[in-house]
């Protein structure tokens, strides 16, 4: 079996290994972790021709430089629009490239997006915790964080030249300024005007932003006397408001319970789009009913499924590449 070896030359903070997540252990205080942008993670695997979305590298705004120290492998990058240099090839956004021994791969934050994924043709050889390689940033459990000097292997590494090339990202993968929420489950602890304000006014993401969550800045939300509510379960997308009236959206590595009331919860279809936004980006929350939330998720799931299938199709010729792009565009239009 062929193995490609890599060494981290440079890594910004919060660059980690993530598979699709560690589901089923919330009752033991363990959030699922996994990619901040689950669609982009699947897309990177689909682009490189992996039939399963296994482990990938999640790159933060801090960027990453890898050196291939032996072997060769095709790899795909998907996520926000990061600048990418692989060997002598410079590009940006979603791309599939082959790296050879002695070459470097550099990802840097680009036009938009906070997270990008590198998936390899082959299998990253990593440690698991509770059946998953996903790195839980608070504890360090899982395959871990990439820091300068760390080496890792891609086993069963393959070169898949037919897949090499750039791919325009589908609109479903982009960010949006409107994020859908379902009000509650602890909206009763807020002044009714605050719930109204929350759905009408604009909020700004702040740089208090990591894999656990992102703090927002906006009009003050007024809590009733709610600082002693019992600790309650949290999900990815819970928006909890601390005693000083500041909301935080909880993300992939969220704490599993919290004693601050949650004014609303972001739909699973929108939470990763929010995670791709950056500090100072502006967001508007749109309240929908629980029934509409389910309908939205089902529609989103169908779009994602179709998108992944198109990305997974081998791109043997320019004609086929163009066809793929048209199909993806068509799906996005239907969604809008």
């Amino acid at each position, binding site marked *: 079996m062929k193995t490609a070896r890599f060494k981290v030359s440079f890594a910004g903070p919060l660059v980690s290994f993530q598979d699709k997540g560690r589901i089923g252990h919330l009752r033991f*205080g363990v959030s699922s972790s996994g990619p901040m942008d689950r669609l982009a993670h699947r897309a990177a695997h689909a682009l490189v021709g992996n039939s399963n979305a296994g482990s990938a590298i999640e790159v933060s705004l801090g960027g990453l430089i890898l050196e291939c120290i032996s072997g060769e492998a095709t790899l795909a990058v998907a996520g926000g629009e990061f600048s990418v240099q692989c060997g002598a090839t410079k590009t940006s956004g979603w791309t599939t490239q082959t790296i050879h021994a002695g070459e470097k791969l550099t990802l840097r934050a680009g036009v938009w997006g906070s997270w990008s994924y590198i998936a390899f043709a082959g299998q990253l050889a990593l440690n698991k915790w509770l059946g998953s390689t996903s790195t839980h940033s608070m504890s360090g459990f899982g395959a871990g964080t990439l820091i300068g000097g760390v080496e890792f292997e891609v086993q069963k590494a393959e070169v898949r030249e037919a897949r090499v090339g750039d791919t325009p990202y589908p609109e479903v993968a982009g960010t949006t300024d409107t994020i859908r929420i379902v009000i509650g489950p602890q909206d009763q602890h807020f002044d009714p005007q605050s719930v109204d304000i929350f759905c009408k006014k604009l909020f700004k993401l702040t740089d208090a932003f990591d894999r656990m969550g992102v703090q927002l800045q906006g009009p003050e939300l007024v809590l009733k006397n709610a600082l002693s509510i019992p*600790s*309650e379960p949290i*999900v990815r997308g*819970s928006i909890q408001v601390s005693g000083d009236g500041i909301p935080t959206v909880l993300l992939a590595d969220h*704490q599993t319970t919290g004693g601050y009331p949650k004014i609303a919860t972001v739909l699973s279809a929108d939470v990763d789009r929010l995670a791709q936004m950056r500090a100072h980006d502006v967001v508007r929350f749109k309240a929908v009913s629980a029934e509409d939330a389910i309908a939205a998720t089902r529609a989103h799931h169908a779009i994602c499924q179709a998108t992944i299938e198109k990305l997974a199709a081998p791109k043997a010729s320019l004609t086929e590449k163009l066809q793929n792009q048209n199909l993806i565009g068509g799906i996005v239009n239907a969604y809008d």
Partner: protein
Amino acid sequence: MSLPTFKSVADHALLIEFGTHVDDDLNKKVVALDQVISRAAISGVVETVPALVNLLVIFDPMVTTHTMIQAAVSRLFPLDVTDHGGQAKHRVSVCYDTELSPDLICVARANDMSVNALIAAHLSAELRVSMYGFAPGFAYLSGLPQAIQVPRKPSATRGVPTGRVMIAGPQCLITTVVMPTGWSIIGRSPLQIIQDNPDDPFLFKVGDTVVFDRIERADLPIELQSP
């Protein structure tokens, strides 16, 4: 027993609430409901998260809805709260060496008692695992005697290591990951709540009971013996 309240959480979860104030009887209902839901194998349920007074049911929105889960859960009532047997009783070793337990003296002073009386009261308590929360393996043990309770400190201590026995209000927990905390550290324990067993990695189950046994500093593993 009247039905709890049900609240929709986004598109994929339902919060089932028995009350709004921390109380062991409410928590026993949560534990009982958690067990009957897991036995009922309701279609589309992904996982349940029992907390102090409520339980979160996370479901797959491709398969089911809030309404369907609420209907399926409502059919499980009335609950038999006494019938959730199988709880284990754990004996947990704690070293109360004052040099290793930075808040032991403060907690004793705050409660106007001697350190020995504080230790005796902690050793006499039978605590109950009421939930896991916050971080991996953070088991909240409830039922600390009133006489030794202290509120959370006004500000958190950063970087509290693993194996610390801490208390706040009626609760006690043993740290499993390094974290900031405003709880008071009254002892050190060699216990590993997160076990090296992929099939059953967490030592306690919600509803289990815990009692403490006193050990000396020399009984701790070497790496826990230094301050």
